[in-house]
């Protein structure tokens, strides 16, 4: 009687597992990540989060040591650059304060109510995705802390990404550098709008709707109304750009947030269905918090912040 040899059995096993994998991929894609796949993901992530927290706790000093060594290089130049930046920011601050006083006076004269600020939830990044192709970060706050899918996530620099899945105790953020991420933005200098698309890391791709409006290197791009609250810094134009006749205006932009070193973040308690809802007597337009910092403690004067 013919029996498959040891080599034949492993080939059959390999083919069987490959087919099983393809079936799983097909079923998961048809279910759009929901159903059994989504349930299993939530369960595994919930069970594995304490392991990641424990390993992260042990390895954090190791990471800090190597980061400290790499930071030593160029520290003197960075110190000089930061001192110049502080001087410039202090000047801008005094100009802004006088503008704020003027706005408050005008609002009082015209009986306009100032926009309300968004609630925020501070969180710490626990883990990264399964590979470098995965532009995902896991944070240590979840559904029980008020986090829901699609909420924007920021750090002190600007927009980091949005929440894509939530368990009771953790949530996954997809970074704006992911190739599947698209953010509607507005050029702060000109008001022109466009779309920022992730390119997997490094610079983002910016495509403008109005090809006649030239861009200058350093132009700040902020979120336009839509999936995110308006006005959050997202990126800066990386090079001067002007569209040629008959061609669209596409250029590169550098993210404002320090995406390669994300540690503490804030989740904005905001969902896109808050945009464009019928205005009632008590409705106020929403605005991101005026101050964005990455400390995990409670901060006065910047909306309601839930500390870890």
């Amino acid at each position, binding site marked *: 009687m013919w029996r498959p040899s*040891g080599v034949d*059995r*492993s080939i059959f*096993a*390999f083919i069987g*597992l*490959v087919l*099983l*994998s*393809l*079936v*799983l*991929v097909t*079923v*998961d*894609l048809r279910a759009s*990540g929901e159903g059994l*796949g989504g349930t*299993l*993901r939530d369960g*595994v*992530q919930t069970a*594995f989060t304490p*392991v*990641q927290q424990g*390993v*992260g706790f042990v*390895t954090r000093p*190791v*990471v800090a040591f*190597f*980061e400290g060594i790499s930071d030593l290089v160029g520290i003197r130049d960075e110190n000089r650059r930061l001192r110049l930046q502080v001087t410039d920011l202090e000047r801008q601050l005094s100009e802004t304060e006088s503008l704020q006083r003027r706005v408050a006076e005008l609002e009082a004269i015209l009986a306009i109510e100032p926009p309300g600020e968004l609630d925020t939830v501070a969180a710490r*990044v*626990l*883990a*990264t*995705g*399964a*590979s*470098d*192709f*995965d532009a*995902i*970060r*896991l944070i240590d706050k979840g559904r029980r802390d008020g986090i829901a899918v699609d909420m924007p996530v920021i750090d002190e620099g600007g927009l980091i990404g949005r929440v*894509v*899945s939530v368990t009771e105790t953790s949530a*996954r953020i*997809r970074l704006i550098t992911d*190739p*599947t991420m698209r953010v509607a933005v507005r050029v702060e200098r000109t008001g022109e709008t466009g779309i920022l698309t992730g*390119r*997997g*890391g*490094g*610079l983002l791709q910016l495509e403008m709707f109005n090809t006649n409006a030239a861009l200058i290197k350093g132009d700040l791009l902020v979120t336009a109304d839509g999936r995110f609250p308006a006005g959050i810094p997202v990126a800066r134009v990386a090079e001067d750009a002007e569209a040629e006749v008959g061609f669209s205006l596409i250029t590169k932009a550098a993210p404002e947030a320090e995406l*390669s*070193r*994300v*540690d503490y973040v804030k989740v904005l308690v905001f969902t896109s269905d808050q945009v464009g809802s019928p205005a009632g007597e008590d409705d106020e337009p929403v605005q991101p918090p005026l101050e964005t910092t990455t400390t995990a403690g409670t901060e006065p004067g910047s909306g309601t912040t839930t500390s870890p």
Partner: protein
Amino acid sequence: MAVALVILGVALQTTLFVRLRPFGASPAIALLVTLAVSRHLGRIPSLLVGFATGLFLDLLSETALGLWALVLTTVAFATVRLRRRFEDDVTLLIPGVFLLSFVGLALYALLGTIFGAQTLADAQVVQKMLLPAVYNTILAPLVLPPITRLIGPRGGGRPGWDR
């Protein structure tokens, strides 16, 4: 023991390299552990370890379930087919780690694009295949010997994988 090694490998890959990313990349530790374990287990157990590790990675990410399972099963199968040569000529082991890591990541990039993850649209796709393979090669002398000591052949006699 293989299961514990896999869990530890995945935990290290997802936590140690959150901020520690030389040149914007990190090693593929789960792939390296799969490779190391597959050198010593039986043929079918090696394939099952590769499949389970990949499935574990899929459940911790937002890509399609089964993608990493397919990739790591393939890596385990390739390791099973090549391990006798590694045992005969140890100098082939380090280039073998680089090649299997690179091929595994390239396969993921290709399949990810086919199944909607747009991995090939990544501007740094070559860097994300090459650098983790290089890091795996550098880490191989630190990872492979301890795993060999833990689950490799004990005492004399034929290695346990030859079944």
